[in-house]
């Protein structure tokens, strides 16, 4: 296997059983993503995008097939070992944000680093910086219930950035944002990719966002309908 491959999905099949009805959401998906690239997963609602993203990040086990993340096969790992992999290499932005309701914005962002055993004092500066970058410097001590949907999403992005992940999975990262804020977030994402070499895997309905990625995987009915690599369109070109 190529050293520069960060994610490898082989023969991923995911089926759900509800009653005696069997639903195949993902059907024998194969792809590899090379380190440092940007990749968009697009497809109609219900096509399995969130499911696939969750599997790639090791949040769930596929019914069949295996995922290799950073050259580590997730299949044989225990839940706690996978947790460690996630903490070291993976960032995740949820479609439904999933901030911890009892933590303030700042504390939510600090969680991944604190989990590594770092002291609050040492990580708060970095967290504040990130929150400032996403435009929430005056919302540090707010609880999720005191934030708007878009604000919560930005906190979630800051949280995904803080451990400088090798690969970042983002489920609809700009879905709830106005054009201007959305653009800021997109810039943050791609800067992270360019400066730190973080691999980006985005799920999006936003075609302009997808176009900025080097690669686009089209999902339909649980299968890869199209897998196209393109020279990414630069932001400036769209804005002009």
């Amino acid at each position, binding site marked *: 296997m190529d050293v520069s491959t960060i994610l490898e999905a082989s023969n991923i099949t995911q089926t759900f059983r509800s009653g005696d009805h069997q639903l195949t959401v993902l059907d024998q998906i194969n792809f590899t993503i090379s380190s440092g690239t940007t990749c968009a997963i697009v497809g109609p609602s219900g096509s399995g995008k969130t499911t696939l993203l969750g599997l790639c990040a090791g*949040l769930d086990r596929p019914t069949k097939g295996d995922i290799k993340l950073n050259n580590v096969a997730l299949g044989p790992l225990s839940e706690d070992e996978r947790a460690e992999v996630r903490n070291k290499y993976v960032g995740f932005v949820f479609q439904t944000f999933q901030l911890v309701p009892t933590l303030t914005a700042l504390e939510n962002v600090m969680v991944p680093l604190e989990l590594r*055993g770092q002291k609050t004092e040492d990580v708060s500066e970095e967290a504040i910086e990130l929150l400032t970058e996403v435009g929430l410097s005056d919302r540090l001590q707010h609880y999720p219930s*005191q934030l708007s949907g878009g604000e919560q999403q930005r906190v979630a992005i800051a949280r995904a950035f803080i451990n400088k992940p090798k690969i970042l999975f983002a489920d609809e990262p700009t879905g709830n944002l106005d054009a201007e804020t959305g653009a800021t977030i997109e810039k943050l994402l791609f800067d992270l990719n360019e400066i730190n070499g973080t691999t980006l895997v985005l799920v999006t309905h936003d075609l302009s966002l997808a176009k900025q990625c080097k690669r686009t995987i089209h999902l339909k009915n649980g299968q890869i309908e199209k897998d196209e690599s393109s020279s990414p369109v630069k932001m400036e070109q769209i804005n002009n």
Partner: protein
Amino acid sequence: MNSFFSTWSWKMAWRDARSNKKRLFVYISAIIIGVAAQVAITSFRDSLNTTINNQSKELLGADLEIETEQTPPDTLKAYFKELGGDQSTITEFPSMVLFPKTGNTRLANVRALTGNFPYYGTLETMPTEAALEFKSTPSALVDQTLMTQFGISVGDSVRVGRFTLPIGGALTKVPGESAATAMIGPRVFIPQSVLDSTTLIQRGSRVEYKQYFKFDDQRDMEPIEARLDSLEDHLAIDIDTETIAERQEEIGEAVSNLGKFLNLVGFVALLLGGIGVASSIHVYINKKISTASVLRCFGASSDQTMSIFLIQAVVLGFLGALAGTLLGVGIQYFLPSLVSDFLPVDVELTISWLAIGLGLFTGTGVALVFALLPLLALRKASPLYAIRTLDESITSLLDNKVKASIYTIIVFTVFGYAFLLTESWQTAGLFTLGIAGAFGLLLVVAKLLMQTVRRFFPSHWSYVWRQGLANLYRPQNQTSTLMLALGLGMLLVSTLYFSQDMLMGELQFANRDDAPNLIFFDIQSDQNEPLNQLMEEQELPILQNVPLVTMRLDSLRGRSVQAITSDTSSHVRSWALEREYRSTYRDSLINSETLLEGEWTGRADPSQGAIPVSAAQEIANDLNLEIGDSLTFDVQGVPVQAYVGSIREVDFRRVQPNFFMLFPAGVLEQAPQIYVTVTRAPNQEASARAQQAVVQEFPNVSAIDVSRILKTINQFIDKISFAIQFMALFSILTGLIVLGSSVTTSRFQRIKESTLLRTMGASKKQIIKILSVEYLFLGLLSSFTGLLLSVSATWLLGYFYFDITFVPNGWVIIIGTIVVTGLTILIGMANSRSIYQRTPLEVLRTETT
């Protein structure tokens, strides 16, 4: 475990807790009362034990007590002399006393004293000096309660037998005796010097001769007791000895039995609290699944996520235990007034560190054990639940093996603690079984209820009723919890109530129109006719007039009683061998007797060989008697050969003289005998008049006024049950708190949906109605189930233990159900205020995240 001690876990635990203070308070509140009950009782028991140890000498009043049932024979007297030390004698017997000033009479416990007893502690009297002066004056000391009852004061006189003497003082305390003693048999102390003048010591009188010793040297009691044992064999009389150590142990045991029982009753409160904890933490953790999953997504291990909530459980359990402990230490100060009447000492209350430690430990432990299930389930929360909601309860993640082990741990904890409290495997086992059975039954009923409502759902009912009913079985319902908390509380309290009711009802026999209510006993043969005449003059019917012959058992199945008692392998009860039998003779069985085995012989001739006697079932069991077994009785010096001719059942609850051994006519007629006369007085006045007349003329005859005894028993049961009810009160309180906390937790569940309903246009009224319907059904069913269970429990208790058929009072069931249901709805509504006090937007923002 490492993660339990990591700063991160503690930090997260604190961060998570700070915005959930209210919910967490609900979580700990349930155990506070239970812990308080445990600490209060344990602490009180501890103080009591210390007091008993400190005042052990006052419990007996002397270093040694030697008791016989007849005037000590010369050999024994000689030994008393040999023993030396300071000695006192008390001759104690029941007798009627009469107060000439008012004419009142009362059966009293008369004690004729000579010497300086008590050597430790004092006879407390008003005035104080009376205790010292009454022997020389001479005058009497009369129980203060008796004097108050009849309006007698110091200086008035009392007549004991044929002798009248002034009352020198009111007796308030006798060392080693509780206030309740006065209730059963009011005490009258007289100087020994006037004993003969009373002429009360006659044939058949039940007299105890007590010799008290005070030794100046630290004498070893064992050789003395050994010597007395051999004297007992030699003289063939019953000699009882008691030393300070023995008395202390005896009283300590009696007191600790009461304490153990109260502790168990209080433990139920703690268990109820445990259920409260289990249910609220369950709901709480259910809400934390997504938080835990998100943390897992960012790399927290399962131990780390669990630690956060484990820390909360431990810390909060400890805080709850601490609050309960402080409360318990306070409550301790109320306990003496509850039971002081039964205690032979005035308790010196101390702060018991043992009780405090136990309270903190058990409180935290109970909170932890009952939180175990959801906590362990949380370890299974996979990060997946950050993107998919878990639609079942979190505990469904645990496999059955783990669940079974947790339940086992809980059962063993309960059993272990019950054992710690009672120090008896059996009691602890029975207690655990009983509680588990009640839990199981209530849970089954809850499950059945949910299934039934679901199955026969009244789909044509109005929306409000349907919604309220559906709340009973919808996800995250509180049906089981409330059923347990309310049902168990109800079960406990009403079983207590029913049992008391049943016993009291059974005792009302004396108030029936034809039942005997006045018994005269110790009637000498020459007094029998005149006394019967006197009854006629008083227009009282003679319901029974029975001769009584006292005798002892000499040998059984050919072996002498002495041989059997000293044979350790014998299963015969020694009290039954050594007791004095008061037997009668007649030619037929009466209606309170039923023949069980053998054949009843109505008349026998001693010259024709052994006499067939009839033994009561109770004594036959204790002596292992079978039909045909030979018995030799010593009838006041005359040996009588007999054998067991029949065994009969005797209804000992009838107010009449009943006999363990019944002789046929033709045998005992010539033996020295005394009589018992049973009559019925139509009212209190007639009864008092008859008693006065009898005491005037036959001062040695004693009267038992059944209605007075009933009153005494009533008072007694009232006092005891008040103490028990006080402990049960903790359970009720805990039940209410658990009810409150369950309702609060279910509010956290219902609030969002209620608000959603409101945004969709439901009126305040509709929402209140929906919730009331839910609480109405919960309250109705749980209280009704609890009551039904308690009716069964009482019935079983009556059937197997008291031999009484229990008929429950329907009104109690109806009213109990209504009250508890009303309370449930009330607490439910009070707790749901915020649903209509806050705006829907506010609620949705805080409750949905």
